[in-house]
Structures are given as C-alpha cells and as structure tokens.
C-alpha cells in the first residue's frame, strides 16, 4: 500500500519539476535566442518483492533529464545594423568574467570603446576568439552572409560562430548564455543575417497544452494517493471492528 503512495508521490515530484520547466518556457517566450527546455520522464524500476518471480512490482517515475530543444526560433526583422541571427547551427561567442560563453541572442551594440558587445556589455568574439572593434566614425557596418563585418568596403572582422559537436553538453547559465565543457572551435561555414534577430523557440500553444496535461496527471497521481489512503483507513476500520 505504501508503494502506491510512494509511486504517486514520485510522479507528483516529477510533475512539479515539469511545471517549473514549462513555467520557465512560458516566461521566456519573448526572450530572443531562448531555447525551450523539456523534461524527459523515465520509468524507474525497482524490484520490490524478490520472493516471487523477481519481476518489478512497483515502478516509480524519475526525471533523469531536462533537455534543451535547440531547434531554430523564428527569424524576425529588426532593421538594426547590429542585430544578427544565425541561420542553421552554431552560436555566437561571448567573453565573460567566467570564461567564454555562447549565445544565439545576436542583438549587439557598440560600447564606449568601440567594441562589439552584448546587451549585458560582454565582448562579442570574432572567429579567432578576439574582440571585435568597430570605428564609429567609419560609417555603418555591413555584414556579408558569411558573417564578415565591413565598414566603407574594408573588412573589420569576421563574427565568430561556434558549433558544438554535441549541443546536449551545453549548459544554460542565464542571461541567454550557454557554457560548453571545453572551448569550441569556430565553424568554417556559417550563414549570418544582419538586421534580424532570432526569437524564442518556445511554442506557446504546446506550452499551454503541456500545462493542462501536467495538471491532469497531477490530479490522477493525487487520486492514487487518496485511494491508497482510503484503503488503509478502511482496513484499519474493518479490522478494529472485528477486534
């Protein structure tokens, strides 16, 4: 009987986590370059009764994984010279105090020293891993589709796009940034679009249906606990009457 309660409880814990993940997706549906997270459920098997056949009698739920959906978000036109979106795979490199981080949020600007920075003021890296300097007096920045930045026809830098071998090893660190286990190499062939930004890839409709699903499943799990509870109470009642 306790097993049923524990099984229901394990499901409720996992569903709470799923709700938190969905809540974070919904909250970030207008965050540029945001990648949605999902929870992968898994059946967690445990042999409870070894005297019988040895088959698992109770299976609990566990959540070994949240995984990030690296699918592309929609590309939105912003008409700003320093907004960039990557077509296809890869991330921009950003120099932070904690080391190199990666982002799909290409809304950059120029700081007081003429360096290309993110909105948080962190340096954007070129394909060699060094900061990019823009001369504010040399006119507008034109980017080729290969990510080469030009001012007055002269090449200034080539914006770095870094492609991880396994995107699953990227870890989110907040501020639209990802951390990689080791520094990534610049991708040889990239397609960068100037004047565009990548929107969040959260699907609001799917998030809403997820919410309904999570709540119903939570109700069911609670009912399971309730039923087991009632059974226990009835057993106590019935047995005490006999006595």
């Amino acid at each position, binding site marked *: 009987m306790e097993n049923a309660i524990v099984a229901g409880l394990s499901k409720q814990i996992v569903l709470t986590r799923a709700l938190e993940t969905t809540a974070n997706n919904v909250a970030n549906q*207008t965050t540029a370059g945001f990648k949605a*997270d999902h929870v992968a459920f898994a059946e967690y098997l445990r042999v409870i009764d070894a005297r019988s056949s040895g088959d698992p009698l109770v299976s609990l739920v566990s959540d*070994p*994984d949240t995984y990030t959906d690296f699918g592309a978000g929609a590309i939105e036109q912003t008409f700003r010279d320093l907004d960039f979106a990557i077509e296809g795979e890869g991330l921009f490199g950003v120099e932070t105090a904690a080391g190199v981080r990666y982002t799909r949020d290409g809304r950059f600007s120029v700081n007081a020293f003429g360096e290309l920075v993110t909105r948080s003021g962190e340096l954007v890296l070129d394909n060699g891993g060094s900061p990019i300097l823009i001369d504010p007096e040399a006119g507008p920045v034109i980017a080729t589709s290969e990510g080469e930045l030009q001012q007055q026809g002269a090449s200034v830098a080539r914006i770095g796009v870094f492609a991880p071998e396994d995107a699953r090893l990227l870890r989110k660190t907040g501020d639209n940034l990802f951390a990689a286990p080791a520094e990534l190499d610049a991708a040889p062939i990239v397609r960068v679009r100037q004047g565009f930004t990548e929107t969040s890839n959260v699907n609001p409709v799917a998030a809403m249906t997820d919410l309904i699903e999570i*709540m119903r499943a939570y109700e069911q799990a609670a009912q399971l606990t309730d039923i087991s509870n009632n059974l226990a109470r009835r057993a106590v009642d019935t047995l005490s009457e006999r006595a």
Partner: protein
Amino acid sequence: MKSLSIAATGMLAQQRNVEVISNNIANLNTVGYKRQRAEFQDLLYQTIERPGAISSSTGTVTPNGIQIGAGVKTGSVYRIIEQGAVTATGNDFDLAVSGKGLFRIELPDGREAYTRAGNFAVSADGRIVTSDGYEVLPGVAVPEDVLDVSVSEDGVVEAQIAGQQDPREIGRLELVVFFNESGLEAIGDNLLLETPASGEPIIGNPGDDGFGRILQGYLENANVDPVQEITTLIAAQRAYEMNARVIETSDEMLSINANLRQ
C-alpha cells in the same frame, strides 16, 4: 511551488514590455523621439544534475542533466537610434539632422545635454534656443534687424540684415556623435545626457565624415512605427495571459495537495 514565482517573473517582464510600448505610442508625435525596446534574458538556472555527470559505476554519462530555470528578467530597455522621417514645416528655426549626430544644448545648471529635436526658436536676447529656452551650443547670436536666417547643410548660419546686400555669417552649428549613442541617458524634454556607457562626445561640423547634414525648415518625426508597436502589444498581452495561466495551474495543483487528506 517555484512555478508560481517563475510565472510571476514572466508577468513582470511583460508588464515592463507594455510600459515601454505605451511610452513609444505616447511619443508618436514627439519631435526627434527614438523608440525603445524592452529586451529580455533568461534568469539563473538551478543545476540539479550537471550534463555529462557520471551516472553509473561503468562510467556512463548523463547526456543532458537536469537544469531548472528561474524565469525571465528585463535585460535592457534599448533605445533604437534610427533615422525618423522628416516633415517640412517651413519654419526657419526648425532644423532636422539627416544622418548621425545630435545638437548640443546648454542646461541652466551649466551641463551639456544632447537632442535630436530641432524645433528651435530665437529668445528675447537674440540667441537660438530650444522650445524650453535652453541655448543651442556653440551659441549663435541673431542680430535685431534681421530679415531672414538661413542654415546651410553644413551648419553655417547666415542672416540677411535689413539694408545690406549680402547675407552675413553669424555662426556655425555643431553636432556631436557618440561611440554608443544608445547608451545616452534620457532626462525627458527630448534631452539626453552623456554616460560612461555612451563614451565621450565627439564634436564635429555637420556634413563632415561620420556626421549628418542639417535640413532647415524640417523636423524629424519620432521613429515609432504604430503598426509594429500594436503587434508587439498584442504579443505582450497574450504572453501575460499565458503566464497567468501557469500561475492558475500551479494554484490548482497546490489545492489538489491541500485537499488530499479529507
């Protein structure tokens, strides 16, 4: 339940978004106004299990790990420096900048402010001033018996004085540019101040390399696009609603818990 606070950050962000949009719409007809855009970033993540952690004695690693985000924050409210359309007014002291550059204005406390709003006028003592009466630097004195004032594209101010054949040069307007114009601080009244983020002002003559030209008899409109603002507003409202739904769901789940033991 953490999802309550996560959804609350989402609602706060959309509220901020609507505030920025409403300020843009309110300034639809403000001369020289530059629209703003709220930009969001995801908040911290709680890593429960790190991607790549060893998950068994045989050395298998978890491919993804468990990371739970804490919601969203407003990363910045960014001013979009983009040329606004110009409207002809025919007024001699209405000046628009076509291209980069701001006018320099002297505030009453002696500080310098910068503006794109060129709806100037002449004060009682013959100085070119803003609509609030602040002097436009470097200061141009307009003689009393003036018939006509013309401002050239490169900022030279000439006055046609009664009884004289040729117009006389009475001053030259200057423009300033910044490394990061979006980093200027707005103080209202269409005025902007220098900040450490904007960099030092670079003063130059209109028409020079990297500086815009001056158009006399024109004013620069706000660069707000009403259609774009309204569509962003609709998206913000829907996003707000969805975050509210998350709160509702969390609340219902909590009430299920509360009713477990009857």
